[in-house]
């Protein structure tokens, strides 16, 4: 035993033996984990560290970025012309739809005024790029090239052209970390677009599947139903498409039906995503905060 003690002490810069230093560092680790579990305590430390590892992130992302820009540079002229034409056509269609939507929106605002409910405000958005950095393989997380300096905040929703992708879980000065809606620890409050049935879409860990919780066997839901974010919970702005129902299994001996849905956005192909700022008049968020406060008081 003493021989092993000496093994360490010869090298130790401090007077401690190897075992003592190990114990000390291990205690530091446990302390850090305990503090980190309660997210708020280590936010500043986390931010500093995220700047420190920024070079690694950039270095890893660089080859992928270079490859992409190289591919764009070398793309044949014909392909570019083709793409350009397609985009122009798509833009025309989108704008025509937008015109109609604008008139609908103003009509909606008028009707809401009549009903005396607060009008939904158009959400501010910012394009962010996903860094080609793999995080924990078991959790569906990714890094974005936007951080505190761009005004990103924790809980901010991420969407793409098709629908909801995920939300921001941690913000550093230059980068931020987001989680996909299919992460096993993630849930989105949704409602069925057709009839407004509310449920929660929980991630499964598989990028093509979400599971809908707490839908009774006689709930009005069928394959093909589109699920949109319901706006409850205050994280995701209401009305964005989230998923489409692909399978409904009703078992008579179970209280709840098993409903599987497929995300509408291309979770594994996107490189650019939109960060949306939720409307400021957030009744749900205030309500959630109130609930949290009351829970804290109760404890």
């Amino acid at each position: 035993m003493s021989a092993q003690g000496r093994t360490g002490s010869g090298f130790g810069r401090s007077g401690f033996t190897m075992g003592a230093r190990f114990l000390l560092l291990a205690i530091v680790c446990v302390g850090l984990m305990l503090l980190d579990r309660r997210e708020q305590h280590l936010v500043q430390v986390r931010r500093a560290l995220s700047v420190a590892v920024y070079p690694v992130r950039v270095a890893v992302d660089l080859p992928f970025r270079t490859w992409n820009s190289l591919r764009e540079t070398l793309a044949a002229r014909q392909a570019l012309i083709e793409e350009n034409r397609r985009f122009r056509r798509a833009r025309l269609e989108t704008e025509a739809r937008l015109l109609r939507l604008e008139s609908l929106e103003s009509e909606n605002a008028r009707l809401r005024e009549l009903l005396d409910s607060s009008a939904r405000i158009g959400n501010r958005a910012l394009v962010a790029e996903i860094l080609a950095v793999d995080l924990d393989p078991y959790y569906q997380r990714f890094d974005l090239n936007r951080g505190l300096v761009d005004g990103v905040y924790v809980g901010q929703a991420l969407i793409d052209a098709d629908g909801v992708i995920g939300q921001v879980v941690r913000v550093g000065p230059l980068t931020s970390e987001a989680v996909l809606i299919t992460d096993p620890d993630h849930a989105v409050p949704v409602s069925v677009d057709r009839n407004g049935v509310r449920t929660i879409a929980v991630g499964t860990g598989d990028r093509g599947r979400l599971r809908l919780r707490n839908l009774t066997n006689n709930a009005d839901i069928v394959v093909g139903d589109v699920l949109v974010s319901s706006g409850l919970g205050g994280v995701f702005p209401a009305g964005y498409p989230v998923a489409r129902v692909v399978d409904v299994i009703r078992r008579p001996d179970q209280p709840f039906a098993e409903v599987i849905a497929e995300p509408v956005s291309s979770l594994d192909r996107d490189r650019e995503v939109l960060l949306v700022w939720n409307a400021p008049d957030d009744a749900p968020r205030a309500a959630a905060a109130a609930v949290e406060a009351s829970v804290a008081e109760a404890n």
Partner: protein
Amino acid sequence: MAARRSRWGASIASLAATLALASVPLPDGVAALRPDWVAVVLLYWSLMAPRHFSLMTAFWMGIALDTLTGALLGQNALALLVIVYLADKFHLRLRVFPLSQLVLTVLVLLGLYEFILFWIDGMAGRTVPLVERWLPPLTGTLVWIALYMLFDRREREAPARL
């Protein structure tokens, strides 16, 4: 002195490259097979060139890895500390082992590393996949053997330093 400095250079470079390897995106099918690069490389150094890195190195590498992967701060650090400490404690005994036993030890240590991560995940209440989790120690051991075959011929022939 110069040789010593170049060796330090090599080890620093290997650590930086390791962090990069640990976060390079892999296609979905292979991602589950990704070895725990940092653990493998630290184990390699602490078994083959002990006293080269202190526990502090393991600690800071772990913290860097936690930050990169978004894990609980200190999770990887603790797991790395444990295996590096064990490797360092027993390296004299391990160095006289035949390769087969050495490989077995590495497999056990990498398994222990994975188990500690798994355990902390469980305590922190994260949803943990059970099966895929145990592939990285296997691939990690293969990588370790490759490192050994590539770099360690010469050192093995030199008498063990006591």
